[in-house]
C-alpha cells in the first residue's frame, strides 16, 4: 500500500479556493484529507471554486483567544456558503450581515486566511 502523502493545510491554491472531487464515487469535499471521506479512495481531482457566496452567519469578536488577536479586536468572523455548496470560515468587514453576497479577496500569500468582501450590487 502507498504511503499517505501529507494533506494540504491551505484552503486555497494561487488565487482560488480549492476543493476535491473523488474520481471514483464523485463525492466533492473541501477540507483536504488525502482520501475521499465517503468511499476512502485516494484518486482525487482538485478543482477551483469561484470564491463567491452568501454569508450564512457572522460574529464580531470583542474577546480574542490569543495575544496576537488582542490588538485586532473588534474583528468579524463569518461562515460563508460558497456557490458551489461548501461552507467556509473567513474574515470580513464588521458590518457584513447574513444574506450578503461576498467574494474571497486574495492578498499576499495564497495560504493567508480567507478574507471576504461584499460584492458590489452590479456583481450580484
Amino acid at each position: 500500500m502507498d504511503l499517505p502523502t501529507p494533506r494540504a493545510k491551505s484552503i486555497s491554491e494561487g488565487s482560488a479556493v480549492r476543493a476535491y472531487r473523488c474520481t471514483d464515487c464523485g463525492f466533492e469535499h473541501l477540507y483536504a484529507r488525502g482520501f475521499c471521506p465517503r468511499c476512502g479512495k485516494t484518486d482525487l481531482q482538485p478543482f477551483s471554486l469561484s470564491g463567491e457566496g452568501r454569508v450564512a452567519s457572522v460574529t464580531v469578536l470583542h474577546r480574542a483567544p490569543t495575544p496576537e488577536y488582542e490588538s485586532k479586536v473588534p474583528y468579524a468572523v463569518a461562515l460563508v456558503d460558497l456557490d458551489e455548496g461548501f461552507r467556509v470560515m473567513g474574515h470580513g468587514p464588521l458590518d457584513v450581515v447574513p444574506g450578503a453576497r461576498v467574494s474571497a479577496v486574495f492578498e499576499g500569500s495564497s495560504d493567508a486566511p480567507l478574507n471576504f468582501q461584499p460584492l458590489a450590487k452590479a456583481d450580484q
Partner: protein
Amino acid sequence: MTRSKGGTAYIGGVGLTPFGRLEGLDTLDLMSWAANECLSNAGLIRAEVDGLVTGYSTTMPHLMLATLFAEHFGIEPSYCNGLALGGATGCAAIMLGKMLVESGQCGNVLVVAGENRLSSKGGRNSAIQTLAQVGHADFEVPYGCTIPGYYGLLASEYADRHGVREVDLAEVAVHMRGNAAGRSGAHLRTPVSIEDVMASKPIATPLKLLDCCPISDGAAAVLLTSRPAQIRITGAGQAHRHQHVSSIGSIDETGAALSAGRALAQAGRTVDDIDVLGIYDSFTITLTMLLEEIGFSARGRTGIDLREGRYDVSRGGKPMNGHGGLLSYGHSGVAGGMAHFVEVVGSLRGDRNADAGKSGFVHADGGVLSSHVSIVLEAE
C-alpha cells in the same frame, strides 16, 4: 467485588461541590471532594467501588487521569477509563457507567470529574485559548475565533433562520440566574434583568457577557450501581455528526434530536412524558437550540416559552436546570455538564418538591453542538 449479574443501572448516590472560586484546590482535591460526598450519599465504602470513569482536566492534563485519581482517592477498580468528549464528557461517562452496570461488568461505578479552571495558573485567559482549539486547526483556529465566537456564529444563523432575537436569548440568562438565586453553591447568584443582559458587554456578537457561562472551579460525582435504588437510568443515547462549526450540515439537525430520540426510544418515552429537564446551557443560544431541536419548545419559541412560564416551577411549568445551569451555577469543565444530572436526580428524589414528577431527561453537548449525549431517568 464479585462480578454482578447486571441488569438495571440505578443511581446509588451523587455529589456536587460549590462552583466558583475555590482557591488552592487542584483537580485531584476537587474530584476527591465530590467523590467523597457521592460515596457518603450512596452509603458505600471505597472497597465497594469496582468501576471508575473520569473525564479530563484542562488544568491537570494527564495521560491517565482515571488511574491517577484511583491511586489518589484510594480505590483499586477492576475497570477504569477516562473520556474526552468536551462538554458531553460527563453524560457520556454516566452512560458508560450505566452500560458497565447493565452488562454485569461492574457493580458500583464511580463517575467523577472536576477542575480548578478559574483559579488555576493562567485562569480565564488560558482556558479561553485552550477551549478555542476545538475549532478546526487549519481552517478555523487561525481566524481568531473563540468558543463564544463559534456559538455566536450559530446564534447569528439561528436568528436569521428562526427569528430568535437577542432579547429572546436574554430570557434564558435571566431564568438561569433566577434558578441559581436560592442555591448557596452557585457561582453567580445576583439576579439580573433582561436590561442587564442586553447592556452587558459584547463578547462575540450577538452574544454578550451574560449570554455566556462563567469559568468556574468545581467538581461533581455520580455512583451507578446494580443495587436497587429510587432512581434508575432507563435510556441513553448519543449522536456525533460533525466536529467543527463550519462542517455542521444543518443547524436544525445538529444531532441533538437524534441523540435524544435514541435515549427516549430506549426508555419507551417521548418528550411529552418528561417532568424534569437538565439541558446543557454553555450559552443562551445553546439551551435555545437544544430545547428546540429536541422538541421541548417549538422552533423560535424558547424565549416566549420562558416568558410565559413553561419552565417556571412557581407558575406550574416544568423544572429545568433548577441549580442555575452552566450559565449561573457555573462551568468547571466536565463537572459542569454533570451538575445538570445531579440536579435532575435531586429533583426526582423530591429534594426540591415532593411532586416534581417521575421522569427526568438530561442532555449535554460537547464542542460546537458536536457530540451529543442524552439520558433518561425514572423514579420509583
